[in-house]
């Protein structure tokens, strides 16, 4: 399973949707994921990819990790995987 598919599966589970309902240009708001759901999704992503995501719920816009859409989240994770690969 690609990074993209795994991320979509995690987000879909959080949103209680089928993966096919989650598109790359969906925003978390579109999917009905609130701040608590976001923090939980990031935790699931960290566990799935064994990475650490720099995200502070107080300043989501200032973090290096862009959560504005599913596409930016996938891109951010791919970057973190590349950076944090040992």
């Amino acid at each position, binding site marked *: 399973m690609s990074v993209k598919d795994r991320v979509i599966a995690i987000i879909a589970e959080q949103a209680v949707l089928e993966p096919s309902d989650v598109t790359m240009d969906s925003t978390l708001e579109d999917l009905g994921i609130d701040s*608590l759901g976001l*923090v939980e999704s990031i935790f699931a992503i960290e566990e799935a990819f064994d990475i*650490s995501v720099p995200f502070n*719920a*107080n*300043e989501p816009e200032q973090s290096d990790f862009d959560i504005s859409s599913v596409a930016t989240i996938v891109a951010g994770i791919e970057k973190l995987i590349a950076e944090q690969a040992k």
Partner: protein
Amino acid sequence: MKRVVITGAGTVNALGRDVPATLEAMREGRCGISELEFRDVERLSIRIGGQVKGYEPEAAFNRQQLALYDRFTQFALIAAREAIAQSGLSFHGDLADCSGVVLGTSGGGLTTQDENYRSVYEEGKNRVHPFVVPKLMNNAAASHVSMEMNLRGPTFTVATACASSNHAMGLAFQMVRSGSCSVMITGGSESMLCFGGVKAWEGLRVMSKDACRPFSANRNGMVQGEGAGVYVFEEYEHARARGAEILAEVVGFAMTSDASDIVMPSKQGAARAITGALRDGKLAREEVGYINAHGTGTAANDKTECAAVADAMGPQADRLMISSTKAMHGHCIGGTGAVELLACIMALREGVIAPTIGYEEPDPECALDVVPNEAREADVSAVLSNAFAFGGLNAVLALRKV
């Protein structure tokens, strides 16, 4: 209905080991937040806190006591000793029977849990110290204060996360006001600064890695503290008859539940608690000169709290001062309202308003007079203390100068 006054105060927190030292630090706008020091801290991403440093429990307690007292119990006892000594009260006979203890805490003996889980899970030990349960239980602090001071009336613990000590003090107030108790020892205590305690908070991603900056546009989260605040709440005529020094009068209390979200605060729930405390204390909005804010330094709390104050206080919101002392002592969770009540008493008694330190950039969503960075002299006759907890539980106290 009886009148309720405060005749003793005690504390231990990152700013000071007693009330005078804490008030001096608040007047000077000193920051008690520093690098955390405890086992496994290097495995944390959050490494700052308002930790009580250089503390030697052996100076206050003997070996048998220490075997039974978690750090949160130690803090509660140290603060209770100071408060009761100041009040000049000793408890015997009828007075002992109608005096009790209500303390707030959120984590209780969390350090004891942390150490013992580590011992059985990480180190694989199969035996724990026989006093683990009486040491970790949330009511340990209240019980030990009751035992040490011979308080034989209603004694219990209140746990409402970050509002625990305000709920505790509010209940103590109601018990004295109703006439069911003459004296209540009340406040709260917390000691969560251990690996597991901070790791759990880290998970929520609301903690700051560098500083607590309440109401500042560049705030980036809360910073945990630890400590205790304990007070003697006494029936007014009882205090007057014995010529006790009165620090302030507690006049009102209200508690509400947001009934909406487990972590996100609600403006309506907070505003209802503020309005309720005013109504309960028969205070006009114009009388309130200072509010000690919950002011955690998170994005969510500070803007919601300012909106709630603006709603509840109307035009007075723009005239009053509101500050968060958490930037100095950290968020002492279940003990925080009790530590912060010191700032309320200082405002009423000394006419000094504790500042919100760490304030760097105005935030249009927090456009109130937050007393940035430097303490201010002002004559105030009534104050409020806000506490808004996870779980949507709000508790606001109203105090008046005597």
